[in-house]
């Protein structure tokens, strides 16, 4: 029995990992784009983007998942995502990337805006180009500032993956819960907690290392 549970949970955990990984891969670049949009001098773009970010950050991810997964089918009568597990997976990734990109964009914006303008000006008076100033002066300071909030957000993502259970995606929680129906046992569901703990534990260690690496200077 234990071996059965373990193998089922591991398959669920793989799906969880996929959501986690693909969300990061998509949300970090998209977050950067949104961040640039939220800081642009073109007013219309700036306010539209800030409004959208506000909406996404102000509503539950679970609601966004439901809207994104069921919305197309209900509104235009056509389920974009395709049927079955694959469709649920794509919809989940899309919802997670949009949601996390908005959170990341605010972290990036805060990080960039927290660097005193004097840093840039000191670069200017030394005759450096804007690109040189960004890559050689500003960037590492921004990275140092955003590592702590990013690590919080990324560890939250580990646990948020379970929200996709609401559209019956077969991730870790779903795998644990399935034993309640099929075998009438609940411990596999509780056991999923070990996976989450181990995974977020590893991430905590990794992020602490990165923070240590950046401790040689202060901003």
């Amino acid at each position: 029995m234990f071996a059965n549970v373990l193998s089922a949970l591991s398959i669920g955990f793989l799906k969880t990992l996929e959501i986690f990984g693909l969300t990061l891969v998509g949300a970090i670049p998209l977050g950067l784009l949104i961040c640039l949009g939220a800081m642009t001098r073109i007013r219309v773009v700036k306010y539209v983007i800030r409004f959208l970010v506000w909406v996404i950050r102000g509503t539950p991810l679970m609601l966004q998942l439901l809207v994104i997964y069921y919305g197309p089918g209900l509104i235009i009568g056509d389920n974009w995502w395709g049927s079955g597990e694959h469709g649920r997976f794509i919809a989940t990734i899309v919802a997670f990337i949009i949601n996390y990109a908005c959170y990341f964009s605010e972290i990036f914006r805060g990080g960039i805006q927290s660097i005193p303008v004097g840093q840039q000006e000191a670069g200017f008076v030394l005759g450096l180009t804007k690109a040189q100033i960004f890559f050689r002066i500003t960037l590492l300071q921004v990275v140092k500032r955003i590592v702590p909030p990013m690590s919080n957000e990324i560890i939250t993502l580990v646990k948020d993956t379970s929200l996709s259970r609401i559209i019956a995606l077969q991730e870790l929680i779903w795998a644990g819960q399935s034993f309640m129906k099929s075998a009438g046992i609940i411990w596999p569901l509780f056991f999923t907690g070990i996976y989450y703990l181990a995974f977020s534990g590893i991430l905590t260690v990794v992020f602490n290392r990165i923070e240590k690496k950046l401790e040689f200077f202060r901003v």
Partner: protein
Amino acid sequence: MSLLEVNNLKKSFGKNTVLKGVSFSLDKGQTLSVIGPSGGGKTTILRCLNFLEIPDEGTVKVGDEIIFDAAQTARLSDREIRKNRLHFGLVFQDFNLFPQYTALGNIMLAPKLQAASSPEMSREKNIPPERIEEYCLEILDRVGLADKKDHYPHQLSGGQKQRVAIARAMAMNPEILFFDEPTSALDPELTGEVLKVIRRLSEEKMTMIIVTHEMGFAKNVSDQIIFMDNGLIAEQGTPEEVFNHPKNPRTLEFLRGYTGLE
């Protein structure tokens, strides 16, 4: 012939006219101190000369080259601005050292990037790239901090930070070095070491403009004093003239505020 000629410089921020037509000139090797009440436009002059602000009117001439003429240049390209900036160095009130570089790293950053990306613009052309480190270390030694070369800014005192910032500006070998209240952010006991470095530069005939509230220092090191008030040069002359025989009642009033302190 003057090294620097500033003619009728004007600058407004919205409705607030901060520079109302400032003209002065400076000979090579001279030290000019700019004094005056805060808000008078002293910082704005330095920022305009370094193209951190673009003046609305006026011309700036270095040697026989007009590097800026508001009437001619609708818009300078980034490259022209960078090239113009290299005539000057600027030391900020709050240092603005780059925190992720050591003292030596702060000094070397710009010379190295310059040598790699636009060597034709570099004003220390004669220094081969592999000698830059040695050259920068010599400059750090000139401000008395060779032993702190591997220290990061947060490991330095305020006075040491400002001396590194001075060395960083010197490393680009500017024709004129500007200081914007270089000791105003320092605890009183740390101002001496910074003023000593500036005094030595003045003795070595570095051409300099110093915005300062250190009246005793200004009187001692300067060849020329400008008293800025409300966007205009209210008085100009030798230290003897400005400090001992001011003609403008505003100057007298301003200086009175300091006599009590000295």
